[in-house]
């Protein structure tokens, strides 16, 4: 199998969301995860602007400017949704009430540090949003990203080179090549795509990879 597409990464991440869990999906790839929610799972999607129960994007005739998510997308609400203010939205995050946060990342270190907020652009302002709260507060922190940069540099690293978003909190990483857990002993590969050798995956990574005994093939349907 080829490296996963963005949609396939999202599909894979969606498979791990348990029935009844409360999940925050970050901008970019993570929001795609909602599209691949398994049919048998009832999930509640949290948005840090004050929503639990974000539903599908609004169709053109459903669009309402008062109903937006944290990515400024026009959304609908799912059944059982609740609306509240930002202090509550973040009390949920920071108080450990969110089961899973799925975020994009530039780099994850072998000790679970995440760098995803400051790309050190020289001509643009900064943007932190809720990333530091999410990565620090959610019960389970999962990152979706390409395994390497466009120039082939690793994103799974010993120490992050970009400014940190949070320290030691990432639990799992979904890339186009592998599903990797961050354990107290460092990176542990749980799944990897078929056409890649362990050595080749290691070569694309900036820190030592261990491989789970039951390491399986990372596979996803055509999407």
């Amino acid at each position: 199998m080829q490296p996963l597409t963005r949609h396939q990464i999202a599909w894979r991440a969606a498979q791990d969301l348990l029935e009844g869990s409360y999940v925050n999906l970050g901008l970019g790839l993570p929001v795609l995860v909602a599209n691949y929610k398994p049919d048998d799972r009832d999930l509640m999607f949290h948005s840090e602007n004050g929503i639990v129960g974000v539903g599908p994007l609004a169709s053109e005739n459903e669009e309402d400017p008062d109903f937006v998510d944290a990515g400024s997308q026009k959304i609908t609400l799912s059944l059982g949704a609740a609306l509240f203010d930002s202090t509550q939205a973040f009390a949920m995050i920071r108080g450990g009430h969110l089961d899973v946060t799925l975020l994009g990342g530039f780099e994850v270190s072998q000790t679970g540090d995440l760098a995803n907020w400051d790309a050190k652009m020289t001509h643009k302002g900064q943007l932190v949003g809720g990333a530091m709260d999410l990565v620090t507060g959610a019960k389970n922190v999962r990152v979706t990203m390409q395994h390497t940069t466009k120039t082939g540099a690793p994103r799974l690293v010993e120490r992050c080179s970009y400014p940190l978003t949070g320290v030691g909190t990432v639990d799992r990483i979904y890339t186009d090549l592998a599903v990797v857990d961050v354990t107290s002993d460092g990176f542990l590969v749980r799944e990897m795509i078929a056409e890649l050798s362990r050595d080749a995956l290691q070569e694309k990574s900036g820190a030592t990879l261990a491989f789970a005994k039951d390491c399986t093939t990372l596979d996803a349907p055509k999407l």
Partner: protein
Amino acid sequence: MIDKRVDTLEAALDGFGDGASVLVNGFGGAGVPFALIKAIENSSATDLTLILNSARFVDGFAPRIFADRRVSKIICTAARSRGPDTANYEQQWLDGYLEIEMVPQGTFAERIRAGGAGIPAFFTPTGAGTELGDGKEVREYDGKHCVLEHAIIADFAIMRAARADRWGNVRFRGAQGNFGLAMAMAAGTTIVETDDPGDDPIPPEDIHIPGIYVDRVLKHEDMSPANAGGI
């Protein structure tokens, strides 16, 4: 008789002037007080401090506030403009003219609430070990490093809501609320613009901001551009 309704933008912004600090509600276009922002743009007030989630929507809708260098400081969670270009306010920041204090969004909301709730400072793990935690007092609680964060208060808070009554009670619609409650709590003067400052009181259990936090209610049409979320 308690009646916090005012008739004009001038009356709504009475007392607003040079050196004012303003909490501005709004997230993705929802709850943004566009009419009040426009009025601030049309004023001559300078040396302003803006405290808001993202600088972008103010710059997009009322660019003269920044173009005329009337803002000295922004406290926010997002100061990046859309697209590859450098916005006016970004350039002023790069040039060292404009101070931008970047705050994680949950800490931002909580610091504002703390300002309104009489809590001068609190500890939080958010930001510990990052550049945004640099220089802050650190203490360990339950095995986690936590930084000490301080309350934010301001002279004014402005927001848009679906409905407000003459007692200043406010009801939001959809995601309008966002920082509104915390901001209303933390401001010396809180101003709400609404299409519906009706004569009937909002039912007591349906209120999102109790009127004790609100000083002025202005009836004004929504001046939101169609694509406000994208500004």
